[in-house]
């Protein structure tokens, strides 16, 4: 769906024509000389429902040609732009769009989306706002996949790929998906909930052409009695599986079935197992699939009961890694036994991505590993490695593009072994850095300024100083100057998350220099409405703004009226908003859906608004609003 959604009203008529034989697998067959075919959709449309003259024959040819050209345009922003040229281009683009990206499932209804794009084969759909990941959105808020899968089952029999993020997907939804689309091949679920092993079993059994089943950080719920052996449900014949990720499925899997599945999946390149697979079992899998490029190792320790036999020798494990010559991405390591870590040395030099963020590795344990990873571009790690571990990474990983340092103890008053020193070391060693997420307890403006100067390619800068309102731990000053330097010096920055003690000043900087910023996350920051005003008036490309616990009120909210139609959403919780202000926004912007909700259902006693979520929508207020949400 387009981010800029003008011009929708005028083309109601285009919804009435029926697509050409949608079952064709390639769009080229539609374009080539089909203008004369009796069943051509163009002819039907010409005759019906138009006030002006039917377009001349040459117009039809032009549209055919256009379709042939447009099929080479994959980028959705380019497609959005081309659809605005004129009606003809709009129609041609709509017919040739293969992937439908819907950044907010409530911005449009299934009927409208599917009605405009009749030939899509892939759907990417995002639901809940990101702060739902942190328990700020009450359970039951919405974002259900059901209406979408039901609509697609009727409209898109040729659907191939679905990717969902933060949606509620039930087992029934998965079963319907599995039954309805014979060409279905890729299913990716990220941070979703509502399903369990029964749904996975349906997908395994019925999607005969399945290539990708990636389950990433979902909340897979199973009552103990209901666990289904879904791995055994894959077809007995060779499968087309290329990627299988189930780290988030918490129940044990039938290992014999898994091993057999891997053995009969010759195309398998990416395998990420859950923590119930021991290191001995992992070795068996690696022997079956030496062609793997991505491996998620599960627990990486011996589970005494399951293995039965003697503990696995490190040398044996290492030999498996030697044999896996194609490995470029390693993850998992849920309960890594430190003595097994050296087994991965043989593959380190080829690694492009390493995720140790569930392993409590110390600096000493990390060093021999990281010093071999010359080609690493993505590195996720726990702060247990400390500044010293980060220094080691900085020394070797000259091509590092993305770094994420997660906290082992995610509390405000925990001790963290990483600090400003680690940040400086990284900035000096990894000057090609594009994306960083860094959790710490102690930070200085100087360190952040240094990073802004060394890493000019930064596109994503997310710094989380865990203690609320923490100033620069050396000077005692607010962190305004550090973040200011980031927006000033990193001219490609599109995503920013701020933390620590921050005044209105930092937002003035962001407004002045952060002209490309699209996503901004704010928590416990700012002094007054000025901050919000700066950002909404200055950041012209702002799409997603999420704010919590900051003293911004109605005046700040109203200063964004000119911009909200250009944004995907605004989220604010625990600020100083009132019903009056939110109602005014709702009233002045009729195409905006303004949702207010709170922790308790009686929150609308007072005027204070605990949580606000507003977003543009083509279809007005949604019809699945729970009782604790009020749409103004």
């Amino acid at each position: 769906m387009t981010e800029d959604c003008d011009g929708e009203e005028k083309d109601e008529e285009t919804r009435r024509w029926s697509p050409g034989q949608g079952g064709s697998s390639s769009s080229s067959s539609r374009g080539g000389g089909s203008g004369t075919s009796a069943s051509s959709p163009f002819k039907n449309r010409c005759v019906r429902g138009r006030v002006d003259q039917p377009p001349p024959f040459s117009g039809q040819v032009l549209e055919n040609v256009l379709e042939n050209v447009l099929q080479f345009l994959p980028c959705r922003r380019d497609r959005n732009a081309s659809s605005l040229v004129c009606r003809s281009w709009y129609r041609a683009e709509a017919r040739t769009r293969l992937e439908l990206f819907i950044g907010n499932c409530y911005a449009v209804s299934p009927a409208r989306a599917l009605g405009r794009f009749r030939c899509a084969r892939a759907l990417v759909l995002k639901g809940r706002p990101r702060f739902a990941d942190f328990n700020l959105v009450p359970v039951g808020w919405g974002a259900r996949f059901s209406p979408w899968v039901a609509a697609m089952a009727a409209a898109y029999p040729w659907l191939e790929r679905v990717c969902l993020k933060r949606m509620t997907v039930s087992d029934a939804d998965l079963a319907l998906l599995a039954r309805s689309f014979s060409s279905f091949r890729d299913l990716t679920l990220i941070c979703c909930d509502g399903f369990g092993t029964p749904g996975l079993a349906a997908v395994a059994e019925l999607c005969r052409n399945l290539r990708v089943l990636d389950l990433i950080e979902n909340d897979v719920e199973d009552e103990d009695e209901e666990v289904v052996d879904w791995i055994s449900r894959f077809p007995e014949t060779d499968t087309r599986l290329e990627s299988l990720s189930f780290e988030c499925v918490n129940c044990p899997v039938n290992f014999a079935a898994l091993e057999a599945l891997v053995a009969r999946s010759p195309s398998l390149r990416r395998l990420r197992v859950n923590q119930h697979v021991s290191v001995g079992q992992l070795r068996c899998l690696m022997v079956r699939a030496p062609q793997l490029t991505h491996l998620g190792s599960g627990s990486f320790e011996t589970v005494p009961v399951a293995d039965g036999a003697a503990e696995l020798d490190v040398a044996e494990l290492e030999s498996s890694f030697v044999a896996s010559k194609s490995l470029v991405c390693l993850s998992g390591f849920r309960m890594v036994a430190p003595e097994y870590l050296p087994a991965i040395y043989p593959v380190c030099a080829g690694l492009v991505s390493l995720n140790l963020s569930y392993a409590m590795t110390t600096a000493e344990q990390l060093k021999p590993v990281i010093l071999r990873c010359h080609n690493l571009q993505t590195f996720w790690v726990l702060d247990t490695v400390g500044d010293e571990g980060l220094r080691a990474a900085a020394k070797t990983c000259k091509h590092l593009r993305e770094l994420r340092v997660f906290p082992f103890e995610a509390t405000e008053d925990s001790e963290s072994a990483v600090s400003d020193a680690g940040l400086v070391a990284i900035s000096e060693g990894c000057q090609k850095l594009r994306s960083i997420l860094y959790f710490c307890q102690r930070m200085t403006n100087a360190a952040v300024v240094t990073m802004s100067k060394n890493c000019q390619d930064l596109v994503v800068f997310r710094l989380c100083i865990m203690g609320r309102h923490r100033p620069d731990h050396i000077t005692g000053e607010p962190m305004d100057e550090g973040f200011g330097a980031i927006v000033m010096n990193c001219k490609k920055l599109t995503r920013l998350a701020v933390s620590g003690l921050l005044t209105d000043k930092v937002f003035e900087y962001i407004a002045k220099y952060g002209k490309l910023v699209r996503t901004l996350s704010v928590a416990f920051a700012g002094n007054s409405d000025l901050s919000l005003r700066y950002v909404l008036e200055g950041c012209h490309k702002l799409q997603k703004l999420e704010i919590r616990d900051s003293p911004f009120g109605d005046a700040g909210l109203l200063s964004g009226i000119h911009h909200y139609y250009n944004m995907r959403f605004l989220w604010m919780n625990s600020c100083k908003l009132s019903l009056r202000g939110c109602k005014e926004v709702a009233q002045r912007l009729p195409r905006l859906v303004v949702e207010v909700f709170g922790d308790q259902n009686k929150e609308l006693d007072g005027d204070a608004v605990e949580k606000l979520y507003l977003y543009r929508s083509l279809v007005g207020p949604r019809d699945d609003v729970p009782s604790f949400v009020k749409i103004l």
Partner: protein
Amino acid sequence: MSSGLRMEETELRLGLPGGGGGGGGGGGEVESGKNSGKRGFVEIVDLKLQLQTPVGVQEAAAEAAEKVKRSPNDDSIVSCGSDPEKPSPPKAQVVGWPPVRSFRKNILSVHSEKGRKEEGEKSSSLAALVKVSMDGAPYLRKVDLKTHRSYQELFVALQKMFDSFTTGDYGSQGMSGRDFMNERKVKDLLHGSEYVPTYEDKDGDWMLVGDVPWEMFVASCKRLSIMKGSEAIGLAPRAMEKCKNKC
């Protein structure tokens, strides 16, 4: 639990939060029976921001404590940051902060518990999400036990969560946060109202919430269920016996 149970732990004392009520497991490594006295509750009130309502804190008990005893102390905020050597008093945990997904928190808390058990320490305050179901409610909720430090706080949170489903039975006596200071009223809540909070522990037994010390509860609670009073009759005696057996 590594430390022995002492009788006073099973007694529901309701001093100011942190002053012994429930033992205060939320802040971290508080030893059993240690009376931390004046807990730095005022840190919650973020005076620099000059907010009317306390920022982001979910527990109403905290609000009550402020109303009762509000001693503005600007220095506490600055001192946390500018003097890193002195450990700042543990702050009340705020919902969803730091912003780490539950998925990750849960995995790491398993690590930490495993490590701590080996060393004989108590588990530190990492996420402990449990499902909460209520008779008659259309869907389950979840609560992070580690964001609360006592039964009072938990009850308030539960009340808020399920307020829409009851007609206010669960606290209809017009209890405010301050009332949780009153021991008698809390007991009335447990025994007098229509709904009774129960939990399933690690052994699979259903027990009444409130019978065991708070930390023991957090460590052993797998799931919560708010049952109708009539169904919960018969739980109490078993729960007491079980507790006696463990003592």
